[in-house]
C-alpha cells in the first residue's frame, strides 16, 4: 500500500522504495526503519497516511 506524507504530500510507493534513503524497491511501508523520514520534508513515519 502507498503512503502519503501529511506534511508535504510526498508519496511513498513501495514498488519504488526510496532510493534517496537506500530503501530498495518492494519494501512495504511497514518495513521501513522506525527512524526513516520523509525524503522531502524530513517528518517521521507517523506523519504518513495510508493511501489506497
Amino acid at each position: 500500500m502507498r503512503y502519503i506524507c501529511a506534511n508535504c504530500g510526498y508519496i511513498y510507493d513501495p514498488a519504488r522504495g526510496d532510493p534517496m534513503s537506500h530503501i530498495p524497491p518492494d519494501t512495504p511501508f511497514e518495513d521501513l526503519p522506525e527512524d526513516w523520514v520523509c525524503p522531502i520534508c524530513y517528518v517521521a513515519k507517523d506523519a504518513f497516511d495510508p493511501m489506497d
Partner: protein
Amino acid sequence: MKPSLSSLYQAVELRQPIPPLLVGERTNANGSKLFRERLLADDFEGCLRIGLDQEAGGAQVLDLCAAYAGRDETKDMIRLVSLFARSVKAPLMIDSTTPDCIEACLKIYPGRCIVNSINLEDGGVYLRRVCRLLRKYGAAAVALTIHEKGMAMTAADKIATARRIHDIAVGEFGLRPSDLLFDPLTFTIGAGDETLRDAAVQTLEAIRGIKAALPGVGTILGISNISFGLSPASRRALNSVFLHEAVAAGLDAAIVDAAKILPLASIPEADREVCLDLLYDRVRDSAKTPLTRFIEHFRAAKGGETGEREAAAGKERPEAALFQQVVKGDPEGLEDRLSILLGRVQPLAIINDILVPAMRHVGELFGRGELLLPFVLQSAEVMKKAVALLEPLMEREASAHRLTVLLATVQGDVHDIGKNLVDIILTNNGYRVINLGIKVPAETIIEKAREHRADIIGLSGLLVKSAIVMKESLPQYQAAGLRMPILLGGAALTEKFVAESCVPAYEAPVVYCADAFAGLRAVRAFEAGALASTRLAAESREKTTPKPGVKNVEIRRDVPTPTPPFYGYRHVEDIPVADIFPYVNEQALFRGRWGYRRAKLSADEYAALIRDTVVPLYKDLQRRAIEEHWLAPKAAYGYFHGFAKDDTVYVRDGDRIHAFPFPRQSEPPHLCIADFFKTEEEGGDVVGFFVVTIGDAMDRLTHELYKADRYHDYLIAHGFGVEVTDALAEYWHAVMRRELGIAGQEPSEIAGFVTQNYQGSRYGFGYPACPDLEAHRPVFELLRPEALGITLTENMQMVPEQTTSAIVAHHPQAKYFAV
C-alpha cells in the same frame, strides 16, 4: 399490635414482613407534572385516577401532596383526602408542612394516616406543633433529617438530627418510636456534583446508624432523588439497585413510583455493576468518574433504541446531552441546556464533571485516531462558549487553584499557530494559560513565569533557529533559578534533539511535545507527579539517523548557464489569484495543515470525508478569498550575476557584492547550496531570488478568528493562508524557470512539484538547507520588497506572516536537502 396505618378498607403494617413498604409518589403536585396539571385544572377525579394507578402498580400507601404556589393547599387537600378516602384502599400519607392543613386532613380522614413530614428546620417550633397534632389524632410521621442549618449531608449529621427529633417526639410528646419513620434524605449522584459523589454512601450509612441508635424507629427514603438528572432508562435501574441496597441496610419504607421498580434479577449484571460503582463511588478507571462510566454505559446500551427515545432522553438529561454537545462540537441550544443545568448544578461542577470529562474524551478519541483535529477544535469552541457562559456565575476563588501554564513562541520566531493550538487545548481542559505571544525573549519568559507563578513553561517555535534558541536559552532558565518543567514543541524539534541537547542543560524536566495533545499529556503527567524529561530509547541512541540523500555526489560543472530576461529586480503586483490555486498542495493542506488525516477511516470513508466535507470547505474558502479580497499576491524577484567561492555565493548588484554564506552538511554527501553555482573561474552564474506574499488580509482574518474563539475557522483559515503562500512560491518559481528557459519538462500534477520533477530548486531562508534568516538583509537590498509592503522584523523575519523567500538555483542536480 403491630404499628400500622389504615384506610376505610384495610390496615397496612408499617414494617412489612418483606420490606419495604411502598409509598406511591406520583400523587404529588411537586413530583408529578401530570398530577399538577390536573390539580391546576381542578380535575380532582383525574388526580384520583393517578392514585388508583399507583395502587394498581403496587403502592401500599399513597403520598398525597397539593402544595403548589397560587393554590389554596388546605382547600385542595380537604377535597383530595375526602375523595381518596372513599375510593382508594391504600392508606394516605399526608404530605404537607402546613400545620393547619395537616390538622384539617387528620380530622376528616377515616383511618390512621402518616404525616409527611416533621423536621428541625426552625429548631423545633414547627416540630412540636405537629407532634401535638400527631398525638391528638394518633398519626404516624415521617421525620426528615433537616435542622437549623439545612439538610444533613453526612451520615453522622443525619443520625444526630434523627436523635434530636426522636428525643422531642418520644421524650416530650410520648409518641411511639415505631410510629416514626426517619427519612435520612438522599441527594442526586446523577448531576456530577463532586461534593455529592458519596451521597448514596452517606444515606445508606445513616439508615444503619439511625436504626442502631434509636431502637424501634423505622426509616423511609425518597428513592428516585438519587438519580435525578439521568436518563429515564438508567434511572430505573439505578433506583432499583439503590432501593435494594437501602433495604439491605435496613430501610423499612420507600417513596417510589412502584411500577417503575425493577426486580433486581431482571437487571443485567453489567448494568447492576455500573449502578453499584456509581452508588458506592467506586473508581475503576482513573480517567473517568463512575458517573461518566454510568452515563456512557447506559448510552451505549440504548444504542439500538429508537431515535425518538434518544430525543426524549436528550431532553431528560441535560448532563449527558451537554457532554455529547462538546464531543460533537455542536453549539446548538447550548445556553438553554446550561440554564436548565444551572437550576441544580453548580457552575464549577458543570465544568469539572461534564465539560472537562467531555474534552478529555475528545482528547482520547483524537489520540486513538477516531477524531480529527478540526473536529477537536469544534469541541473546544463549544467548551469555550460554555465556560464563558458559566464563568461570570462562579466565585473567583473557584478558579484560583488551577495549574498555570506559561506559553510563548521564542525570540526571533513569529509563528503562533502551534502555540495557540496548545493554548486552546490546555485552556479547554481547565488549565490556566498565560499566552505571552510571539518573539518572546527568554528574559521576559523568566520574569513572567515568576510573576504568574507558572507551574509549567511551554516554548514553541517553527524555525530551525528556534530549536537552537530553545537549546541555548535553557542555561538561562537554569541560572535564573527556575525549576518548573519546560515543554518544547515546534516543527524543527525532534525527540532526539530535545533529549540530547536540551534535557542536560536544565535541572527540572524538559519534555518534547510532538503536538498539542502531547502537551496536554505532559501537563496531566505533571499533575500526577509523573512528568519526566524526554529520553531516547536505547536503540535510537546508538543509531545515528542517516539523512536522506545520495551519499556520493559529483556536482557537474559543465551545466550551461541560462540567460535571464533581465538583470536586477522587478515587482509584480497583479498576479491573478486563480492562477495560484492550481499550485496549492491539497494533500498538505487537507492532511497536514488542516489535520484531515486518514487515521482510522477506510479508503472509502476518507474519500467521502474529503468529497463531502473538506473539498466543499476548500472551494468555499477559494470563493470567499476572491470575493472578499483576502489575497493580494505580489512578487519581488530578480536575476543577478554571481559566483560561488567555497561555501559562499557572491551576488553582484551594480557595483556592490553581497555575500550569502551557506552551511555545509557535516555528513556525506556534504552538500552546500554554493555547490550548485559556478565559481568565478568557471565563468560565474546566474542567481535568482524571490520574495512573494499574499498580503496581510489573511493575517488579520486569522487573528480575528483566534480572538473570537473560532478555533476551527482559525485553523482552517491559517492553513489555507500557509498553503496558498506556498502555492504562490511554487507558481513564481515556475515563472522564473520559464523566464530562464529551463522549463523543459514541468510536472503535470502537484505530486510532481512535491518531488521537484523540474530543473533546479528553490531554497527558502529559514528552512533546512539555509536556516539562517540573516540572509534576508541582502535579499531585501537586492529586491526592495518594502515597496510591496513587506518589511523585516529586528529578527529578520518577514511581515506579513504569509510571505516567503527563496534563492533560486537552475542547476539540474540542485534539489532539497537538509543540513
